[in-house]
């Protein structure tokens, strides 16, 4: 009987004393020779995250932001870039711009992007002359001083701006209007960064998204249309002279390395992903079948590395954790890295 009472006492005592397991402290001092991956996460799950792929050991570390800063990154990470030794991360649903030391990934400042008490839902960012430009779904581009990390101004643009690109002193902003679907926007604004006013408007097609510029000051935009057969997601060029041309190339996301643009497209009906390479100087397709798309479950973007490899974001089914797929120059899969939920951006650390 005494033994039973003892057991009961121990059980009550141990359950009553249950505490949350403390987060494991695996801080790292310096990040180099690896890939930093931004995982978008899922809306309302607060599970945006950073993954680190060590290229020497090929070891993968997840939840890097949490480990370095002991707090979650937030909800829906959309964009990430390094400027002036700082890493900037756009967190859409949390409406924050996280500024980190690019080498230690320690937080320098979290900039709340709120206006009149409402989240602005930032989407993408670009840099020019010590300023960060952040497009936000509330119809504005925030201008942030990268020295003081304070918001200097905000420029009114179209509905739900997405991709942005800078050419000289001009900022190009794609106004998607995606939250008004099917009555979406179809314009790209050109903004003079000196006067911080809209100088020109280009009608490129419904629901524009990613924007890339080239050396010749041409602007390439993905107009996503209605994603259907009647208005497919395609690549549109705004020439330096202001001429708009639909190039008829299937496109979901675009990015560039030097003078080559990488156009990724995923056909949700057939489940096929393609990567097209495009010569920006000759304005011609290099290859429309750059990788073996069958080796990717759900193509969610591409990152051309400084070396001769291509990294593909594989979102799987969007609710399962994704992969970074490494392809060689011949377009064959050579390595897969299991990362977080919906990988969307990658930075190669030398």
């Amino acid at each position: 009987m005494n033994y039973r009472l003892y057991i009961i006492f121990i059980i009550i005592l141990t359950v009553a004393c249950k505490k949350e397991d403390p987060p494991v402290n695996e801080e790292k001092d310096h990040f180099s020779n690896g890939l930093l991956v931004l995982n978008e996460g899922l809306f309302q799950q607060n599970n945006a995250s950073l993954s680190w792929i060590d290229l020497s050991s090929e070891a993968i570390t997840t939840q890097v932001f949490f480990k370095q800063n002991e707090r979650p990154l937030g909800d829906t990470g959309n964009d990430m870039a390094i400027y002036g030794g700082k890493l900037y991360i756009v967190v859409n649903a949390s409406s924050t711009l996280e500024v980190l030391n690019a080498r230690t990934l320690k937080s320098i400042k979290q900039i709340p992007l709120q206006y009149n008490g409402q989240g602005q839902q930032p989407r993408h960012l670009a840099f020019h002359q010590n300023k960060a430009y952040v497009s936000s779904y509330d119809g504005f581009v925030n201008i942030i001083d990268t020295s003081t990390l304070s918001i200097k101004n905000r420029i009114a643009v179209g509905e739900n701006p997405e991709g942005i690109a800078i050419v000289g002193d001009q900022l190009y902003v794609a106004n998607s209007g995606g939250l008004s679907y099917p009555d979406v926007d179809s314009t790209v604004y050109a903004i003079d960064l000196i006067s911080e006013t809209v100088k020109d408007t280009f009608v490129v097609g419904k629901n524009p998204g990613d924007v890339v510029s080239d050396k010749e000051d041409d602007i390439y935009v993905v107009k996503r249309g209605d994603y259907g057969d009647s208005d497919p997601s395609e690549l549109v060029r705004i020439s330096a002279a202001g001429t708009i041309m639909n190039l008829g190339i299937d496109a979901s996301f675009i990015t560039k390395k030097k003078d080559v643009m990488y156009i990724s497209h995923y056909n949700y009906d057939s489940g096929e992903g393609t990567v097209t390479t495009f010569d920006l100087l000759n304005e011609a397709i290099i290859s429309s079948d750059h990788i073996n798309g069958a080796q990717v479950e759900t193509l969610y973007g591409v990152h051309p590395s400084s070396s001769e490899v291509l990294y593909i974001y594989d979102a799987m089914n969007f609710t399962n954790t994704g992969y970074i797929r490494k392809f060689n120059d011949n377009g064959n899969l050579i390595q897969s890295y299991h990362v977080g939920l919906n990988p969307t951006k990658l930075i190669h650390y030398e």
Partner: protein
Amino acid sequence: MILLSTVCNFLFGKRGVQSHHFSQFCGYCMLCFFSCLSFAQSDTSEYEGVTVIGKHAKIDEHNSYNRQEIQALAPADLGILLKRVSGATIADYGGIGSMKTISVRGLGSTHTGVLLNGFPQANPQNGQTDLSNFQLENTESVAVSIAPLQKIKVPVSSLMQGNMIALETFQQTFANRPFMVRASTTIGSFGQREAYAGFKLGNQRQFLSSSAQFRSYDGDFHYTLPHDNLNKERVRSNNNLTSYNFSIGCGKKWRTGKNIRHRVRMTSQVKHIQRSLPGAVILYNSPTNEQLTTQQKQLGGDYSIFSKRFRLRAFANLNQQQLRYFDPDYLNNQGFIDNQYDNKNLQGGFHGKWTWDKLHLHFGSDIALHHLNSSRNLGVPQRSTSISMIGASKKLSHLSVNATLFHHSINDQNAPLTHQSSYNRWNPQFTITTSEELLDNLQFTLWYKHASRAPTFNELYYSQIGNTTLIPEESQQMNFGYMWLFNQNSVNVAVKGNVFYNNVHNKIVALPTQNLFVWSIQNVGKVQTYGTDLSFELGVQISHDLRIELASSVTHQSVTDRSKRSSPSYGDQIANTPRWTQSNDLQIKWKQWTLTSSSLYIGERYALNENNVTNQLDAYLVFDANINYAWKMKKSRVLNVQVGVKNLANRSYYHINYFVMPGRNYFIKLAYEL
């Protein structure tokens, strides 16, 4: 916890992580077992038109609660009460006032039907019932049924559903005395204010009743989040609720001839609910300002006839539900969303039984017409549904056997979207149950149930995501159940258990089809469930003034995703569904005092279908306790004073990821009845 795990590993052997979780669970069970208690079952069953109240458990009723049990547990709404039902998973989006839906044995909320006084509460727009809309002040009984039923008071359409919740209210039961009054008022933490008043005139042959309810809740509770390095206490905002409910009812019984009895009842109800929708807590951002307004009107009536060989119930029910969803901050070109939906449902049918000796022939049919108008681009969906049933049950010397076949026919039409489709399904059900002649006090049952549920209007037509090619979702359920009863002197014991296997295919799920922001509904999911549950009830009359009642139940269920073998989540437990749940209720009655204590353990879950550490949601254990004093006055008047505390340990937790739940809170309730 380590010591506890060591003890349990010693007892059960070490089997890695699974064993660790099991040992943790055992610890909770043992703790709860020694610290908590419950009630004996009494149930209300209808026989020959007469309501018989007895103290006997029924194997076809999975869980049931009578008025005394509901009052003792003091749940804020139906969803909170049903958290204790074994095999049920209540998706609770934030406590009092927040939406709650039920999933039983992995079938999904659209497979559960709700019957209010025998009238189906259909909502073809979203297919699920928000259990938080049902307050229980006027409720006489709540029963959850999973097994095939043959009761004629249940419409055919409800018999065919995967499982069913049946509520009987004060307004629709015949009166025990010429004038009955019930009134109560409750004041609680976080701005909880409730009032209820109802009366009934009549007797066992006729009644006229009316009741009104009011509820208001500020919902501004404090909470903390896990992994918050600042351990910052926040306040939930935009979480208020106001609701009004008014109902009337009447009924009459009469006889024609010697053995033919008739009964007719009418009911009408108006409900208005104004609710804020705080949504999930989004880290670092402001809460939303979304609002949902629900207005519901119902008019129903039924007629029953009972004779020695023949029984039949026919009913008709007209229901209108108007919803308005308003988001004043949405970042579209209007700057807001204002969506309005107007659902109209007309349903009628009959269910009869003809008896020859020990053979019973069941038959019946339900017809329903559904119509939806909305401010969104959904077209004008219209649906006509017909469900017919024929079955037979035979009582043999040692067994009762039942076989029933349902025909389910659905016709959908949406002229503006040029959509028209029809589906036909045959759904069989079988039951074998041992009789009391075979085994005294011990009963076994084996049953099989096939059910189908039609795609909802939202799944078919909702702009961007709707898919008009959807077909019905199918479920198969198999169950072996047992029940043992023991009644001797002052001790009552009931032990019930089930082993079950479920299979859902053509499961309707949302998938991204264009990008992460453009999803579509498709018939691609498969879910497999197997599990077991065990419940134990004990009542001991220790002395004339002292009685102790204990109820405890435990469920283990594996509800796994079987949709696509190559998926990383194939074979994983589906989102928000715990493997282990456990509840305990203890009641000590001494003279006019009643002390009630209850606990609920919800095991680890995953926020998404992939069972990894990032998606893992912690298990939680919540204790409630209250004490009631019944001041009995002259002429059978009773004034109850009840004081209670919920979430006694002030546990910070959530069931759905980042839908935070309230911490410790208190209430005081005064209830008068005549």
